[in-house]
């Protein structure tokens, strides 16, 4: 899941997560997803596939729309499945059709998969996104993982110089994760903070720099331009940096999530999505639309408030969790 390049991790065993732990994670994810009153699980219960007719497809569409997968993605997935059943490629058997649906959904979710690239020395990871989607919290969790579980030295750059007390919030996460923090004054130039953090990391020989940025709506073109500038300033320190740019998308987000990913990608060239707040009742189906439409894959998911609740994204498990009973 994480490409560390030539760097030898202090704790090599964590590179591949133990299978048992992983299963636990997705059991949790399934549990949390099934807490929903209108969970897909109810909509797409096996009985829906008992008899396969027009209503089956309609209700399947409903279920995917309710999961926020969006009309175009829903139509594409259902059409494909329907076509396969009509052509006899998939037997018109409830359980088999259901399995095939999970496969198709997983395939869509897996578009553009790649590990998180932390091979740079130091590797620079930039976090962007709309206000309130969980950027700072996600950074805290990533820092904790890298520092406490993988033994890497991490520097956090408090690039959200706009929101009141944003740097204090990040400072608290830095303390919990045992990471260093580089910050500027409130209202300071975010590019300058990122620049300073990277030079500090280079001076200290740190492994990873994670740059926080202020939340911004993708419609504010001046703020999007500011973000591109932060990226350019980072590249002045290390030409290939940021090595990894992630956008945090709130799982409760509707079709607007697609616009968010598109516009942010135009500004800073996204490498992946962190799908946050999946522990609620929202299914985060917008991630399917983002992968299908833009080829930007989900790399991490947030399933709770504690430090351990950040997980690698597994398309097959995710698709199964969407349809689990």
């Amino acid at each position, binding site marked *: 899941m994480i490409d560390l390049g030539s760097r030898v991790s202090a704790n090599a065993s964590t590179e591949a997560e133990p299978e048992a732990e992983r299963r636990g994670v997705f059991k949790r994810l399934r549990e949390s997803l099934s807490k929903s009153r209108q969970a897909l699980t109810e909509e797409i219960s096996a009985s829906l596939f008992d008899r396969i007719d027009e209503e089956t497809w309609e209700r399947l569409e409903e279920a995917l729309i309710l999961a926020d997968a969006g009309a175009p993605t829903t139509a594409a997935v259902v059409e494909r499945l329907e076509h396969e059943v009509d052509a006899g490629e998939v037997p018109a058997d409830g359980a088999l059709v259901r399995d095939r649906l999970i496969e198709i959904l997983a395939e869509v979710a897996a578009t553009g998969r790649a590990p998180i690239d932390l091979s740079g020395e130091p590797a620079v990871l930039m976090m962007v996104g709309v206000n309130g989607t969980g950027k700072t919290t996600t950074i805290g969790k990533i820092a904790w993982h890298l520092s406490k579980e993988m033994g890497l030295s991490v520097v956090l750059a408090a690039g959200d110089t706009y929101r009141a007390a944003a740097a204090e919030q990040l400072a608290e996460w830095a303390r919990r994760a045992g990471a260093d923090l580089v910050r500027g004054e409130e209202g300071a130039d975010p590019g300058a903070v990122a620049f300073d953090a990277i030079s500090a990391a280079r001076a200290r020989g740190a492994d990873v720099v994670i740059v926080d940025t202020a939340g911004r709506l*993708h419609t504010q073109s001046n703020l999007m331009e500011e973000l591109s500038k932060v990226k350019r300033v980072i590249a002045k320190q290390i030409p290939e940096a940021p090595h990894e740019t992630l956008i945090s998308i709130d799982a409760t987000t509707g079709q607007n999530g697609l616009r968010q990913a598109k516009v942010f990608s135009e500004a800073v060239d996204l490498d992946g999505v962190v799908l946050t707040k999946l522990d609620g009742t929202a299914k985060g189906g917008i991630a399917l639309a983002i992968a299908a439409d833009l080829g930007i894959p989900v790399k991490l998911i947030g399933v709770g408030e504690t430090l351990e609740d950040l997980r690698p994204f597994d398309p097959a498990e995710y698709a199964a969790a969407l349809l689990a009973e």
Partner: protein
Amino acid sequence: MFDQLSDRLQSTLSDVRSRGKLSESDVDAAMREIRLALLEADVNFKVVKTFTKTLKERCLGSGVLNSLDPGQQVVKIVNEELAALMGGTGSELAMAHSGPTVILMAGLQGSGKTTACAKLALHFKKLNKDVGIAACDVYRPAAVEQLVTIGERAGAHVYERGTDADPVDIAEWALQQARTDRRDVLIVDTAGRLHIDQDLMSELSQIRKKTKPHDVLLVVDAMTGQDAVGVAESFAEAAEFDGVVMTKLDGDARGGAALSVKAVTGKPILFASTGEKLEDFDKFHPDRMASRILGMGDVLSLIEKAEAQVDEKQAQDLQEKMRKDQFTLEDFLQQMKSVRKMGPLSGIIGMLPGMGAMKQLKNADIDEGELDRVEAIILSMTPAERAEPGMINGSRRKRIANGSGTRVQNVNQLVKQFDQMRVMMRSMANGKMPDAQQMAQLSGAAPRPKVRRR
């Protein structure tokens, strides 16, 4: 905001509107389009079903199709139903008869509660109320610091006891303090919580019991998808909220959450948060918003904003001056200032009828910097020059350009534009509309607000 929904509905309806006769299958086709537009706008699936059903019944019933102008009738029905869906005419907050009015704010993480608290505080400040805010979010790191900073920026007193106290105790204590301090309003900020987190939800209903709020407001992110309805229903159970604050409406979210929440919970949207600044917070008017979605413009809001900035007497004087051709650059400067006080120009354009259809305006950034330059140029003129721009000769132009940090060409442009504007105003004040050529001259020669396509 609501742009894409608005686009879809407008194109569907303009098709309907342009027909002299409508058949039942025309209505069916329009309903399918409307259904898809609403779904793409994140309106809840079940709400869409009911909505299109009602709509269709009304369109097919009571002689609409046989009326003189069926297209217009259908548009009118859609407008009415949209407004009804969002809550009819605007609703008001309940205020206490004596003692502080207590307002409890609740919502999911990241929906914008803390910011909404400060914005609401400023809203009351403008009504000359003394406002306190209770800092009950003890969970998110630095949430208290954030509230203290922006709460005080809004001119409110923030009651905080750090992060070690129990939120329910803080709320009770803050209420006592607010009574002692004779505050008019106490806004209670709470931690963001998932609606399925039973511990935190029962904490919320505890806070509700202890503080007996006059209003409980649910803060909802306008970008929320289908889940908005489930969230609203759960919060309705635990906190029995009275109304909704819709945040992040300045994005391009299609606003389906706004449409759905009222429909499912019956609770109205009371406020809309429309920008990063504390002032970007307005009362929500469902009927006006429906008109806006349909591209009919929100003229009432525009007039209200204008009324708040321009006083009657001043306006009369101005008209007189225009008529008598005595309009000076000084007047122009004052005018520009009051228009700009109404907010960013791009926001104002969205309120004008028909502007939604003008693509180059809709996707435009109005360059506010250009207006700053015009202001700077006029401010660098002497009072005599402002009154009689004709006296501005070459050396004066040079001085003005230097003084305002612009170039002589900019000064030339402004003076030239002002001359043409005066001619046009004179004819308008005398009851004649400017002809197309005059308009073209004006816009061609003018240092007009630069329109940049995105």
